[in-house]
């Protein structure tokens, strides 16, 4: 038996921008990312509407998909409910369905002892008359009313991205504060108390006189008299809405609602957190709103530890990274409001290393740091605007195998993405599937790595120029070559000489440079040497600057046209994703 309400499955049909959605969220914290207008907030709104603590909810034609109110909308949640919700005390019997991992189904008469999870199908329908109908679907498909009391018991705590929202800081029916404090007739006791206040005492002489004159006029006209001023309620305004939390600031009592957005939101959550945990569902739109990174991290840890089910949207890399350190599930909502799972085991490292991967409009996953530097340099000329303004982000995929898992997860979640990688000859079937899914936005060297594919185009006479770093110093790189050639001297002449007979000298030099630039350990005499040889790559291009330098070297050393031929279709594929026309050969040159 669960200790808190859990939405096991959500089905939304024709609500706002969502034509159809079928989603099985995680039991704990669900963090949703995805571009603007993708429907993340609509999903949150749908859940809040389903568990609305009041029937007085107004809906508009625009709440219907394509504004077609005649076809209605429906939001249905298959939920597991804890005992504390008190279904047993309701007049109406709600009969459970059993959860089969995908949906609530009719229990099997022959389940004999097997563990069954009882779930209930709750839904709200928008009718063609713009009315709302809250319903429970019974296992015989009979539909009975979903009482407002049950919705209040589930108690959705909702922090919207609306600045004015301070509902949970007031005694509004079903608000967090109401649920925490109200014990029976609190609101009528407050009304009673307020009505005892002698407001007439505030009247001044002239005002009292005016009231007295009115009194006698009314009396003469045979109307009610003996007048006094006092509290009168009006339609649509409850006493509860006027009563909220005050807190002391510099000895003045101020409404908590007048504090900053972050403080208001954190306070609301604290109030909700003080109510029975068993009856809580938390919804937070734009969790980062009003919070500094450290408070945001605190909040995410708190939600994770709270144990209840939460639905959170975010555009913040801090939030995505913080969620990666906990146990939250990350979801990607695409433009058609399809919600794709980003399985933790495939993305966890990326989530911590580069959380913006999941927030970019077009993440391009590159094999390693060199490739990231290389592509960033090229992107400076590949797009009209700065790539980071466009929403294109080159991310370090952390190596060939890791990147494959990540690409698959992102592809399955429905992200639009690019990939730039080597072919290391493993998992060829899976790579092929990625290549097919990404089309021209997928780039893979037919053979070898980036360094190899650039260096192979450098003319013999220019090979030694590769050793010069952007500052013109070449000592450190030449030393790696000398080590590999097993000579003490590390000047260019000695190295060239050590490369053997003149006719094969440059071929040998090229392969030694490639070996050093890629940290190849083949031929290292012992383990110690192996370790050192491996680190040679860092002296060459294995860094952000190194990747960038590779582009510049290719241009300076006249190898660029060949490389451009290789990668232009890829670049044009990325441009197409932003609706930009293809570049002709030569236009990419930095």
């Amino acid at each position, binding site marked *: 038996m669960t200790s808190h309400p859990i939405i096991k499955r959500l089905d939304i049909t024709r609500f706002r921008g969502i034509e159809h959605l079928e989603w099985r969220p995680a039991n704990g914290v669900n963090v949703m990312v995805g571009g603007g207008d993708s429907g993340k907030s609509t999903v949150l709104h749908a859940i809040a509407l389903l568990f609305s603590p009041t029937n007085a909810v107004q809906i508009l034609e625009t709440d219907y998909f394509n504004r077609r109110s005649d076809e209605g909308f429906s939001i249905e949640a298959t939920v597991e409910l804890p*005992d504390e919700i*008190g*279904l*047993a*005390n309701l007049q109406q*019997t709600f*009969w*459970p369905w*059993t959860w089969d991992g995908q949906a609530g189904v*009719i*229990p*099997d*008469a*022959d*389940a*004999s*002892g097997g563990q*069954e*999870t*009882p779930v209930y199908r709750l839904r709200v329908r928008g009718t063609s008359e713009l009315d709302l109908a809250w319903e429970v679907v*019974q*296992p*015989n498909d*009979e539909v009975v009313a979903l009482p407002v009391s049950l919705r209040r018991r589930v108690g959705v705590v909702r922090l919207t991205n609306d600045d004015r929202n301070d509902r949970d800081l007031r005694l509004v029916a079903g608000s967090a504060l109401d649920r925490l404090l109200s014990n029976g007739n609190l609101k009528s006791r407050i009304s009673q108390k307020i009505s005892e206040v002698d407001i007439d005492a505030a009247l001044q002489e002239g005002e009292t006189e005016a009231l007295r004159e009115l009194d006698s006029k009314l009396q003469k006209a045979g109307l009610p008299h003996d007048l006094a001023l006092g509290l009168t309620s009006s339609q649509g305004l409850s006493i509860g809405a006027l009563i909220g939390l005050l807190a002391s600031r510099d000895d003045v009592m101020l409404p908590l609602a007048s504090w900053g957005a972050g403080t208001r939101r954190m306070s609301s959550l604290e109030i909700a957190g003080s109510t029975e945990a068993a009856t809580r569902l938390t919804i937070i739109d734009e969790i980062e709103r009003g919070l500094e990174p450290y408070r945001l991290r605190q909040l995410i840890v708190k939600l994770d530890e709270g144990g209840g089910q939460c639905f959170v949207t975010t555009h913040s890399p801090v939030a995505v990274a913080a969620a990666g350190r906990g146990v939250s599930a990350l979801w990607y909502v695409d433009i058609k409001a399809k919600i794709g799972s980003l399985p933790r085991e495939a993305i966890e490292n990326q989530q911590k290393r580069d959380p913006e991967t999941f927030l970019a409009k077009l993440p391009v996953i590159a094999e390693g740091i060199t490739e990231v530097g290389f592509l960033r340099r090229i992107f400076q000329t590949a797009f009209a605007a700065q790539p980071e303004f466009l929403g294109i982000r080159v991310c370090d995929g952390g190596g060939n195998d890791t990147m494959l898992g990540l690409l698959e997860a992102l592809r399955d979640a429905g992200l639009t993405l690019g990939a730039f990688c080597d072919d290391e000859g493993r998992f060829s079937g899976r790579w092929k599937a990625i290549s097919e899914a990404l089309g021209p936005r997928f780039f893979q060297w037919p053979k070898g790595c980036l360094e190899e594919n650039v260096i192979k185009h450098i003319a013999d006479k220019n090979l030694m120029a590769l050793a010069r770093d952007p500052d013109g110093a070449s000592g450190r790189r030449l030393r790696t070559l000398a080590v590999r050639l097993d000579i003490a001297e590390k000047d260019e002449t000695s190295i060239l000489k050590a490369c053997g007979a003149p006719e094969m000298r440059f071929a040998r030099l090229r392969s030694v440079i490639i070996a050093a630039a890629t940290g190849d350990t083949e031929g290292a005499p012992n383990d110690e040497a192996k370790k050192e040889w491996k680190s040679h790559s860092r002296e060459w291009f294995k860094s952000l600057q190194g990747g960038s330098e590779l582009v510049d070297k290719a241009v300076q050393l006249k190898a660029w046209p060949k490389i451009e031929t290789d990668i232009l279709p890829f670049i044009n594929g990325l441009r197409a994703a932003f609706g930009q026309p293809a570049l002709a050969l030569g236009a990419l040159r930095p």
Partner: protein
Amino acid sequence: MPLVLIEAPAGCGKTHQGAIFAAETAARNKRGRLLILTHTHAARSVFAGRTKSGSVSIRTIDSFLTEIATAYHAALDLPLDVGRWARESGGYDDVARRCRQFLEGSSMVASMLADRHPWIVCDEHQDASEDQHRAIMAIHSAGARVRVFGDPMQMIFAKTEKEIQRNLKRWEDLKARGVWGELEHPHRWHPHSPELGEWVLQARHILRDGGSIDLTGRLPRGLAVHIAENSAPIPRNSMSMTAEHRAPINALTRRDRSLLVLASGNERVEHLNGFFGRSMPIWEGHTRDHLTALITCVRSASGDVGTISDGLLDFVYATTARFSASSHGNRLKAQIENGCSKRARGATVHLQVMARHLIDEPDHRGIAKVLLKLTELVRAKEEGFAEVALDLKSEIREAIQIGRFLNADEGFAEVSRRRSFTHPKPAPRSLSTVHKSKGLECDHALMMLCDKQSFSNSLYKRRVFYVGISRAKKALALVISRNDPVPFLSM
């Protein structure tokens, strides 16, 4: 979870105890609702009258199981409207069996019910079928506390010895499983005839233990024994007595303004009806066997006038006297067959009108018109109908009511529903089978005829006898045969 078993002889305050227990438990209990399960609507209303708490649900076990079956009809392979199906086809046993299997198989639903009803009080549990019993035990296993009231000596709905023995064993097993107690104060007789109450309780022990009740010594105040014999030429077909034997019975029927005359079995009640010259109505209880058969016939006939007329005639034969195939039925059928084409005279004119109704509307509406006509003819003592007696008036009245509905099944359901909620009571002086008197109490009862034909020496008949003698609060009279003596009575 606790299981409490209370053996409750008739008239010992079982309902009172159950209602007090329910009210107190419900008041203490913050969660869910206590559930009282009865076997009849009559018992349900008695509990409802005594238990005003909002957190108590009182249901007949049939309706409780039907509700479960309705929610999960697809899993139980039953039609959508299980209640209607069960009512119309008499499928309550089937519903109980499937529910039992379902609750034993899916502990989830049993748990949910145990959560909703943390306490279950079972009334008259000796009448629970094996499936009903096991369905409740499945909810008990899932966490509901169960308090069972029952009396194995009032087990008169299980008829075969084997069935009774099995149910007795079930009762003993329950005793072994839970806490057991017995009510022993005969409250029913306390204000008027405490001696009679003690005697009934003793008689119960003797009947239970297979002994013989001694009627030779001093009888308790409130009990009278009269000797009489059935002098009818064929005792199985009717009842008559010599004036001498009849005198004390006549004295009783003249003296007591309220009197319940009890007999074992429908046939004996019919014979007594003739014996008393139809001076007392027959108490028809809360079920309508003949009407149920009639509606089943209407459904299967689907407009076939031959089938309809056969069903109607069987119904009339069973609910009236002196209306038989030879006296009326065959002539009515002949009229239908020749399409009322021949000119008729006398009583045949009336039969022709009836036949016309059936030909025009060969369904429940035609039937209702025929029965209405018949009632009018009998009341007006019209030619050919002056002798006819309407015995089971409720059956006939309800058949006429169903004629007002467009659909026979809907009409039957609605009429049955109204009967469940209006709780008809027997007239102050009436004639009833022991079975239909179960659950009732009265001031004066007369049980006749106590002969071997009615009461052989079986577990079943001993129980019927016990239920019969435990109805009267003030005075009980037994009319006993010497020639064909009841084996368990000694004179």
